[in-house]
């Protein structure tokens, strides 16, 4: 009967042979010499780096998320840039220098000379104008994806730009309709990367039906890397731009691979198939360092918050929303003392080791500590520090007891993780427990993140309590407090229903203030009103981290996530 086993043993042998061909990928050998030595960076090498996804689109103007920016940032460059590691220090990019004041309306950019696009054409003022013209005139289908152009500049009548003109071959003048103190910060975003006009032409970039700029790897930028090939869901391969105007990259090739699951990214690093990845699972920080890998911390530029909405039940009823379990009776959150009890009941500190791997800070205000405004805003706010006894007392004083408990409904999103929210369900459970310990009765709800049920309902203010967070686009309190609490006419932001006397005036004053010192004080006033009335509870500024193999050097993390791989080098193995 032995021959019967033949099939089986052949198959088994084949598997063993394949398994034995493991080659040289010993993962955790941890040769200690690699990580310490700085020295001169080695030239050459291929770095495989994993993000959660690849780029949504290869047309920079149509992207708005960090994963897309990661790739396109290497290829396309913007007029102005952030200094390495800084969230607010502007340096020259494709514009070598510029003039323009935060409270003025005219910005003059002097284009860097002798810069060539990767297709060999020259960068000049006309190319910059062509790019901004294209973005301003994008068709509606494109506008749907061009989030930041809409946000920073605006389409059609909403545009803050009066004109963009080339006054000579190397000078571009932007004239705004009104002063905008954060305009330059907006231009730093990779979606404002300048594309070669010849490439815009050859890829039909303005024709929604036929554009290939969104899908094809083209030599369209001025950046340190050229996109050589792009296979969706598989990899993006970038090669060094030998003609780069600035300091050239050390790496020969940079391959970005998509691995959605953070645990799988670590496994890939351990297995040797990648040499670095972003967004390490906080619970894996120890595993990274124990395995002989490098953990590169990226300080927080975000904040997780608990939204409280006193008028949620009225809003939900008006909109005909029926939840299961249903809202019953008046919202206890209408009493500011109860809202304060919510904040006092939450041990923000305890969330950091459990969910952020111990890396992060308690969010007393919305502004992350990496912001230049953090101290000023924090100085204006009186913190409500964890005190469950005080919370219980406040509830009792407000007339709630065990027989007549304060019932609040609390939502969390599913199918999503964010840098500020690594484990929504877990955070929800932990905070529910804390609220219950302080005497609240909590009804749990969840909904899918990108579902009107969560984002839509949360932002329309149908939820008593909900989680959301924010990663700053640029360093300005207006991008944090302003975006969330701005009034629509006389209506406070629906999401929080934060109807506080004087808030509207304070917001208007802060928004219009361009002079930096006065701007800080004005936003401090806004923050004070918001936090004193507990319109939301800022919870944690979560740090994130990248991991690298021991032979990779020189990665410089930036809180905004805008990072170029030029400084990265690899020791030969």
């Amino acid at each position, binding site marked *: 009967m032995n021959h019967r086993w033949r099939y089986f043993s052949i198959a088994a042998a084949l598997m063993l042979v394949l398994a034995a061909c493991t080659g040289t990928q010993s993962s955790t050998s941890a040769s200690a010499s690699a990580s310490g030595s700085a020295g001169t960076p080695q030239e050459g090498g291929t770095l495989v780096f994993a993000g959660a996804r690849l780029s949504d689109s290869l047309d920079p103007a149509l992207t708005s998320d960090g994963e897309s920016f990661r790739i396109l940032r290497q290829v396309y460059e913007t007029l102005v840039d952030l200094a390495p590691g800084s969230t607010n220090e502007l340096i020259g990019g494709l514009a070598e220098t510029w003039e323009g004041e935060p409270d003025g309306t005219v910005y003059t950019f002097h284009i860097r000379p002798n810069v060539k696009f990767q297709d060999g054409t020259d960068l000049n003022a006309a190319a910059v104008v062509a790019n901004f013209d294209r973005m301003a005139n994008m068709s509606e289908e494109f506008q749907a994806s061009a989030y930041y152009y809409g946000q920073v500049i605006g389409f059609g009548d909403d545009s803050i730009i009066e004109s963009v003109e080339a006054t000579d071959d190397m000078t571009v003048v932007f004239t705004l309709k009104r002063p905008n103190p954060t305009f330059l910060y907006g231009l730093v975003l990779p979606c404002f990367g300048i594309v070669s006009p010849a490439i815009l032409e050859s890829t039909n970039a303005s024709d929604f039906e036929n554009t290939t700029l969104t899908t094809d790897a083209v030599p369209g930028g001025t950046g340190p890397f050229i996109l050589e090939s792009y296979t969706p869901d598989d990899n993006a391969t970038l090669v060094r731009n030998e003609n780069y105007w600035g300091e050239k990259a050390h790496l020969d090739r940079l391959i970005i691979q998509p691995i959605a699951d953070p645990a799988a990214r*670590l496994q890939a690093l351990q297995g040797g198939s990648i040499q670095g990845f972003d967004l390490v*699972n906080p619970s894996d920080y120890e*595993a990274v360092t124990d395995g002989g890998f490098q953990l590169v911390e990226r300080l927080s530029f975000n904040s997780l918050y608990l939204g409280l909405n006193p008028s949620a039940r009225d809003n939900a009823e008006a909109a005909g929303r029926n939840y299961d379990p249903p809202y019953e009776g008046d919202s206890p959150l209408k009493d500011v003392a109860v809202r304060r009890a919510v904040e006092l009941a939450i041990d923000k500190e*305890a969330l950091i080791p459990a969910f952020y791997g111990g890396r992060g800070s308690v969010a007393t205000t919305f502004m992350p500590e990496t912001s230049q405004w953090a101290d000023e805003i924090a100085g204006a706010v009186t913190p409500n520090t964890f005190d469950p006894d005080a919370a219980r007392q406040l509830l009792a004083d407000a007339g709630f007891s065990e027989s007549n408990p304060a019932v609040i409904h609390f939502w969390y999103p599913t199918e999503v993780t964010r840098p500020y929210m690594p484990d929504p369900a877990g955070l929800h459970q932990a905070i529910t427990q804390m609220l219950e310990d302080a005497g609240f009765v909590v009804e749990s709800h969840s909904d899918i993140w990108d579902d009107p049920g969560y984002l839509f309902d949360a932002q329309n203010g149908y939820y008593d309590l909900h989680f959301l967070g924010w990663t700053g686009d640029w360093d300005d309190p207006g991008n944090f407090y302003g975006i969330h609490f701005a009034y629509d006419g006389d209506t406070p932001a629906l999401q929080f229903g934060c109807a506080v006397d004087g808030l509207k005036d304070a917001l208007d004053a802060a928004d219009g203030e361009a002079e930096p010192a006065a701007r800080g004080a004005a936003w401090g006033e806004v923050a004070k009103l918001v936090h004193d009335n507990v319109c939301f509870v800022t919870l944690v500024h979560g740090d994130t981290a990248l991991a690298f193999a021991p032979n990779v050097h020189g990665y410089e993390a930036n809180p905004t996530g805008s990072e170029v791989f030029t400084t990265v080098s690899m020791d030969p193995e």
Partner: protein
Amino acid sequence: MSQTATLLPAAHEQEERTVGLWSDALRRMRHSPSAIIGVTIIGFFLLMAIFAPFLAPYDPTRGNLADSYLPPSPSHWFGTNVQGQDVLSRIIFGSRLTLGIAALSVIIGISIGSVLGALSGYFRGWVDAVIMRGVDIMLAIPGLLFAIAVVTYLGRGVVQIAIAIAILNVPIFARLLRGSLLSLRESDYVIAARSVGVPGFSLLVRHMLPNAISPLIVQGTLALATAVVEAAALGFLGLGPPDPRTPEWGMMLSDTYRYLNDAAYLVFFPGVAIVLSVLGFNLLGDGLRESLDPKLRR
């Protein structure tokens, strides 16, 4: 996900419906090792579900962040999760949900599927054509995607999950019963009964359905197994019950598989619970099939 459907030989011979068949089947089941093991495993989980409050050492939904990630120890046999909840207690209470969802989904699936299958197999003609095309369409969509869509549509919850799984089972049961009825139509005794003038409906109810029932029972048992897997897969994909404290096994896996690198026990124990219960139902179904299939009765 509905692989076990194919375990069943397509055509089932008719059987005489006599007390003898069933007692005979029971007798043979007692000698079938797979049936015995299956019954033991399922019995074990059933007892666990019934006596959960007495067996579980801790409250499955209460935890303390200070007790996060305790590895298995005498005080927490299966360790604790990030919330500091006791994993053993959660698995014990989870058996209630798993068995409940499985049973409910199979009951609903058999009921609707049998009605459709009976209509199809009895009336034939355009009724058959319409129902069978509907079945074809449903079977052409990957089952898991279908279940995801149904749960997203109905909203998350235990009953909704059971309904989604039941809908997946409907075409399988419908096809099975129709097939049995079609082969029975041509069998000698049905032809004989028809020729002596037994009215059609009573022929269906009194003579044909009872004979078509044993494949349904076998398939139902196997469907219990797939239901457990499907419920866990939905939980794994984040479509379990809305309260994250619910100790559903699939959700326990999806909550913790991110910690596979550091705390493999968090993934291992709920996974083993799923495998064991599915195995129990499969063994039982296997044993039932061998006992009820007259071809194997030798």
